[in-house]
């Protein structure tokens, strides 16, 4: 390809090449900057405590201590926190999938008085900062004796969330009406149309929803901070913060712990990359 270009130089070809060199330079520099915090975290997580704050900084951990991870696991009850986080995440994800798919179906396919107004109301709730309802909602759960349980962190997902409902509705709208009309002529009820005809059609959107719901719950910090007080009930994000308070000088263990907390999201990203990007795109472009 390049030999052809040099043999018969087209106007602009050289300039185009210069541009792409600049583009690569900027992208590589940006990637380096973007990766430094990651690499520094990983590097520190393998270092001997004596070398963590060495001046000049030690770039390559020497000695390389895999045992930091074992020690971090000893100091912080990772297994318990992981279990707690998984439980909250799984229940919330299930709740979101169930409620949002049904509600979005209602808004996309059923005709009932006030539908459009209610949908506008739903969209406008996205503008309401969570801080406005935070204190009353806290009071409600406390009054119902659900403080220090996972109920306040999981139950709301069964009522759907505006953003996910909006996202799924956009998807339902792309499914041709002929599909459910054909099913209805064959005598399918509304619920059969929902469950057997439309739900299989929006699987990619459900995957996107599942991934975003996982991410939100796994990463949530303020919720567990407000509602959970017993140390044994902590989530990973909350546990990490408590760990910092207790072992604020052991940065090698703290970085090992941070890496472990990040790991599931990295895995999730590489497995579900397509759905991540799809979700961002749907929300951003069609929103």
């Amino acid at each position, binding site marked *: 390809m390049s030999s052809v270009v040099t043999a018969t130089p087209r106007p602009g070809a050289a300039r185009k090449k210069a541009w792409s060199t600049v*583009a690569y330079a900027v*992208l590589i520099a*940006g*990637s380096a900057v973007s990766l*430094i*915090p*990651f690499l*520094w975290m990983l590097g520190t997580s393998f270092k001997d405590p004596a070398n963590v704050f*060495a*001046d*000049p*900084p030690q770039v390559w951990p020497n000695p390389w201590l895999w045992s930091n991870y074992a020690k971090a696991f000893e100091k912080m009850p990772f297994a318990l926190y992981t279990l707690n986080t998984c439980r909250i995440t799984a229940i919330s994800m299930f709740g979101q999938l169930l*409620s949002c798919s*049904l509600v979005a179906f*209602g*808004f996309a396919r*059923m*005709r*009932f008085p006030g*539908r459009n107004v*209610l949908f506008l109301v739903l969209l406008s*709730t996205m*503008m*309401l*900062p969570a*801080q*406005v*309802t*935070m*204190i*009353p909602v806290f009071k*409600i759960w406390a009054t119902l004796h659900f403080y220090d349980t996972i109920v306040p962190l999981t139950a*709301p997902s*069964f*009522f759907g969330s505006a953003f996910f409902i909006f996202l799924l509705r956009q998807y339902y709208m792309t499914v041709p009406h002929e599909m459910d009309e054909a099913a209805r002529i064959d005598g399918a009820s509304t619920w059969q149309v*929902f469950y057997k005809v439309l739900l299989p059609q929006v699987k990619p959107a459900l995957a996107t929803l599942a991934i975003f719901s996982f991410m939100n719950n*796994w*990463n949530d*910090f*303020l919720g567990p901070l*407000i509602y959970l007080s017993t140390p044994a009930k902590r989530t*990973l*994000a909350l546990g*990490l*913060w408590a760990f910092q308070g207790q072992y604020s000088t052991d*940065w090698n263990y*703290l*970085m090992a*712990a*941070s890496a472990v*907390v*990040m790991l599931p*999201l990295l895995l999730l*990203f*590489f497995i579900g990359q397509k759905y991540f*990007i799809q979700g*961002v*795109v749907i929300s951003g*472009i069609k*929103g």
Partner: protein
Amino acid sequence: MAKKHASRLQRKEAIEGYLCIAPWLMGFVCLTVGPVIFSFIMSLTKWDMINPPSFVGASNYATIFADDDRFRQSLKITAIYAGCAVPLGMVCSLALAMLLNLKVKAMSGFRSIFYIPAILPGAAVAMVWTMVLRPQPSGIFNAILGSLARVLHLQFIPVPWLTSPDWVLKSFIIMSLWGVGGGMIIYLAGLQSVPTQLYEAAEIDGAGSWGKFRNVTLPMISPTLFFNLVMGLIGSFQVFTSSFIMTQGGPANASLFYVLYLYQKAFKYLQMGYACALAWILFAVILALTLFVMSTSRRWVYYEAELRR
């Protein structure tokens, strides 16, 4: 007869429709409308959540506006943060998206590297950045800047990133740029949906790179810009986790973000009524900003569909 049948079907559909949206409707009433009303009433009271609230009228609001230095400080630094982090983030994410859109090799690799920081748990990210931004010369940012300065024969004093009131907010703004990948993905999709004929037509008209960017790219992605601007503003007024973990609002309240202050009032000092009033002021600020941006959007956001109509 047929008409009666039809209306019965319609009624059945309506009932089933309401059943479908019932979960959201219940949640909306119990977890949104109710709490919103409750929150407003509580903002007019003195309430510690243990003893019954006592009605104090608008005095919470009066105190907030008349003599609450920490409120003023938190609103000020949050506004400065939003005013810097949002435009900077938009420029950076758009620039990255445009570079990736040049059909570069390993595009998806670059995309992953830039996007991943945006999806990581805020608590873990805060830990990592506390480490990266250590004020000592051995902190990695200071060490890198120091060696750069040595190469360029410049004098370098280690930057007290998180420990100086002059630097802490700048540090948070720099840190926010680590998350530009989310916006980048949206812009990338927007750029890819711009029809190539438009660029070809512009080229025929003699437009250069800048002309094509100014007259084709920008108008075509203006709805995306608008969306990111609104979401970015709302998000930057709600920063909490990073400041809670990294600085607790210090030093000298220089990183006391608004929601952190609200959290402290509510759950540290148990001034729930006061915190509700703070939440309502936050809502008013966000609403005013959003409406302002929307009111300007007619002048700079181009919707293709409008022209077709």
